[in-house]
């Protein structure tokens, strides 16, 4: 009942409506390049959130998050090219590929301890990267693979913005349902105490594997959208930088909170645009930011905002 009351809270609803209006009007106010940045923001929001489900909720420090996205993008692109199908049809087999890849990696790694899991998932990420580069006759290798655009001849940024926006809203709602449903409850129990959760009847491996495959599917879906938006796929999309940006966004936003990574992704993307002129030096700034956040405020932005809210708006002390 309380949930329902919160939903029809008029003050909150008006704020939500304003935010929604702002998001819808936003692409009409800015130029093409800014729309491109916004679309990347949305892409990283979804990727960060799905990595957060693994690392923050399930306790799986997965280093192959970007791989399922990249492989799905390649699968879709190759299907488009070799069978001359439109992207709208290849998106489903591509998501199945992402799911299979996640299942395959999960099959090996889920039962491992955290460090082995990280190392092995990272190993798979490198294997697939090498395979894509090596099979250049098929995948184009480092030269890149030109894939058809998702919306065909419509090249307007606004259309892509809304495509990404509505897909992202759908995916984030699905993830919200997962987190607040039965599976999320299991995940939180496992995160807090694996042994206690197992004793209480939670099937730890099954739960972890389910979430591993779910996040693989979500990440794969957005990988396909990203590939067909960019129009060209390079092995770069499986590079270290991609997983670094995801980890950074989640850490800055607050690992283990639902809204944190979404804000973190936006913040990092904007920061990366502001620092673009510095070239490689932006990674130094990001690295320092990551370490400082981890050392001094583990909860990220979410924790800081919560503290400020409790202290000044509610007038409560820390405890």
């Amino acid at each position, binding site marked *: 009942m309380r949930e329902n009351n919160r939903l029809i809270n008029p003050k909150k609803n008006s704020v939500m409506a304003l935010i929604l209006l702002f998001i819808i009007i936003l692409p009409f106010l800015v130029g093409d390049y800014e729309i491109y940045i916004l679309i990347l923001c949305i892409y990283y929001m979804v990727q960060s959130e799905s990595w957060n489900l693994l*690392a923050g909720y399930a*306790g799986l*420090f997965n280093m192959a998050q970007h791989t399922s996205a990249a492989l799905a993008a390649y699968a879709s692109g190759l299907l488009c090219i070799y069978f001359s199908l439109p992207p709208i049809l290849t998106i489903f087999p591509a998501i199945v590929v992402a799911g299979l890849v996640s299942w395959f990696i999960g099959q*090996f790694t889920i*039962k*491992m*301890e*955290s*460090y*082995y899991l*990280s*190392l*092995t998932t*990272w*190993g798979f990420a*490198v*294997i697939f990267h*090498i*395979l894509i580069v*090596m099979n250049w006759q098929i995948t184009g290798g480092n030269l890149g693979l030109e894939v058809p655009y998702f919306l065909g001849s419509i090249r307007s940024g606004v259309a892509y913005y809304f495509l990404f926006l509505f897909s992202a809203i759908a995916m984030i709602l699905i993830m919200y349902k997962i987190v607040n449903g039965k599976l999320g409850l299991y995940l939180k129990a496992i995160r807090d105490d694996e042994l206690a959760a197992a004793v209480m009847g939670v099937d730890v491996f099954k739960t972890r594997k389910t979430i591993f495959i779910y996040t693989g599917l979500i990440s794969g879906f957005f990988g396909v959208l990203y590939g067909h938006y960019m129009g060209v796929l390079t092995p770069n999309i499986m590079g*270290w930088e991609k997983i*670094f940006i995801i*980890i950074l966004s989640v*850490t800055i936003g607050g*690992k*283990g909170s639902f809204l944190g990574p979404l804000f973190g992704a936006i913040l990092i993307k904007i920061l990366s645009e502001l620092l673009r002129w510095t*070239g*490689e*030096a932006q*990674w*130094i700034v*990001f*690295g*320092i930011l*990551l*370490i400082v956040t*981890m*050392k001094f405020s*583990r909860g990220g932005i979410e924790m800081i905002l919560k503290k400020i809210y409790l202290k000044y708006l509610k007038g409560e002390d820390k405890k």
Partner: protein
Amino acid sequence: MISIELIIKLTITGIMMGIIYALMATGITLIYSIMKIINWGMGEYFMIGSYIHYFVVTYIFGMPWYLAIFIAFIVNFIIGILVERYLLNDMFIKDVGKPFDYASIITIGLMFIFRNLFTVFAGTFIYTPPALISQNITIGNTIINGTKFVAAIITFIIYILFYVFIKKTWIGRALQATAQNRIGVQADGINPFKMDELAFGLGCALTGAVGAIVAPLFMVYPTVGGICTMKGFLIIVIAGAGSIHGVLIGGIILGLSETLGGLFINPSWTSIYGYIFLVLMLFVRPRGLFGEKLRKA
């Protein structure tokens, strides 16, 4: 044409590369076994070692290359100790959530900082230091690259020294004890935090030293550490973390699978054979060849 001489030559090369790879993994396995973390930025210490080699040999006139190994060892030791003391030590004494996640995120951040510091200040150029020795080595009637041979010999000496240090000296045994039981060693008057610092510093120093040794083979550029990280982690997964003699065998398996796989199957796929081994190993022994099952307190 596959001849006996070629097989012998590639076997010797594979073993030599394996020894070099093994020392790359030794630092990772040392840090893992004491602190139970993975240092993702391990390759960056390797890269720093390579740059020190190039700097010493090229800019400081008259300095021999073997001095670079000592300098790289000491510099990396100091960096490692500082990183452990001021960044990683928090994971044992403060509430940081999962210690492994904390350490992973910190080391990934450090990796990007170091790598891009060198990109910004030294540029993305590929520097080539002069070879360690100019002539080739002839064993029987097989000719082997002299630099590779010398590098493998020095690496092996360092590996043996490290092995003796761990097995015979008091500090080495204290490290072993800390790896087995962090709480138990405190009853014997060993400070586990000091052991953490030592292990992290030593691991970084060993990796830096091997970076300085093989700089003429692997060249010197900001992302050269990726090779070290890749081979090191591969060996850890094949051999099982926490075993010092395991990494030598794992390294030799990796070196041989690269050279012989290149000979018998396809030379352009050399970097993939190690991973094929990894996947096979995961089927047969998910904890690696020499990995011990983690005891939970």
